[in-house]
């Protein structure tokens, strides 16, 4: 794991300020708590005045912390930088999300709290109970049984279940899809499961624009205590497949 070289560290505390998960404290030199550290690389990029922070090569399961937390790490299997997929960013080309579909991006640990994978499994299991379709090529989808939402040992890193559950990351994105008529039920399921975890998660909802409106919006507006934020991201529709 990342560590501060005791010979060179001058205990200035700069890295303490920059760590997004408060994993660093100053003892005689900088000490990085191995349980809290998510290997995001922020401290390495925080311009340590004496270059004391070192990042050795990591092996699974520790490596998974870095793959999920450091945007500069790349999952070979997805060929997408970062921890998610292209989701709706290329939907004008792929048509992965059609009229009547709703895409879900439930980002565990966001904003800025971090998450254990035990909590991730609690939420994936709750979503699976509602028959969602987990998105292929998402790094988290590669660790779970798509029918039950539970972690599986059939994963690209050959991790044991206890190995997977030992992972802690800055965030992890659960990406899945459902029909629009299940949208209320899924929001309620997320609301229920949010009381059973020791972290936070953001909820992103993908939907096509239809006749000048976002198709899922009227459904969400009917759910009690749900407030749709006024900003979001929008694929403008100028992409097309196979263009050279």
């Amino acid at each position: 794991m990342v560590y501060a070289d005791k010979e060179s560290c001058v205990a200035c505390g700069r890295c303490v300020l920059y760590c997004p998960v408060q994993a660093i404290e100053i003892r005689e030199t900088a000490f990085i708590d191995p349980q809290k550290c998510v290997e995001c690389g922020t401290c390495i990029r925080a311009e340590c005045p004496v270059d004391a922070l070192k990042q050795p090569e990591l092996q699974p399961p520790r490596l998974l912390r870095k793959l999920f937390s450091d945007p500069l790490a790349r999952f070979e299997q997805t060929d997408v930088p970062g921890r998610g997929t292209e989701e709706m960013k290329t939907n004008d080309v792929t048509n992965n999300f059609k009229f009547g579909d709703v895409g879900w991006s439930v980002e565990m640990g966001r904003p800025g709290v971090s998450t254990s994978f035990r909590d991730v499994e609690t939420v994936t299991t709750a979503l699976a109970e509602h028959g969602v379709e987990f998105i292929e090529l998402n790094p988290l989808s590669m660790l779970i049984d798509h029918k039950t939402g539970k972690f599986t040992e059939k994963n690209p890193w050959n991790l044991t279940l206890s190995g997977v559950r030992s992972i802690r990351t800055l965030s992890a994105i659960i990406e899945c899809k459902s029909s629009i008529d299940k949208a209320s039920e899924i929001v309620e399921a997320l609301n229920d499961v949010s009381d059973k975890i020791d972290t936070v998660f953001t909820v992103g909802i993908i939907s096509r624009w239809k006749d000048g409106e976002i198709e899922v919006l009227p459904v969400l507006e009917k759910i009690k205590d749900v407030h749709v934020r006024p900003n979001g991201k929008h694929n403008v529709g100028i992409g097309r497949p196979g263009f050279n």
Partner: protein
Amino acid sequence: MTHTHYREGSVESLKGDFVFVITGAKGYNKKGCAPRLREMTRLATQFIPVNMGCMEYGNLSRGLPAKSIIENIKDSDLIQVVYDNKEDAANALRSLKEADLGISVVISGLHDEVKDIVKQAGVADYPHTANITIGFMGKKSLAASDDIRQITTMCGHHMISAKIVEHLIEMIKSDRVTPIQAAIQVSKQCTCGAFNTRRAEKIFEELAKK
């Protein structure tokens, strides 16, 4: 994921925040798309973005020149370009539409403002697909305060700690740094270039007055 739909703050503040993402589609038009990504980024850069870059190479906030960012774009890159006003965003989109290079563009911002931009740029009456949010759930007491999240959520991957933001607010209060210096300092942690330095300057200024 670019996470730019999770940016928090008042509607007034978000009126000065538009993030473009330009990327090829795996299996459809990604292979060999780098020249088109470079051309689209070059066009977008003409409309004076407040930040731009891509994750693996770097961004303006980390001191890289736009020319160098553009030259180093690869097929697999996801380009981010940030504008602080609607007019520049609409003009940039019009330019990308006219170039007609077939690569997808996503704009993050207020839903109604982005809808207007798409129409003003002559693309369509409304966008193709949306990713909206209902905020966050769970143990909310673990998250940073509403004030601090206005800054931290501008880094898509949440590389900016609440502690450094709080520290810089105190530094501004004691006249040791200016709001723009604070904004530039935290923007260096945002590796992909989605951070809006101009908006952050205004937020730092407001928070330091509290």
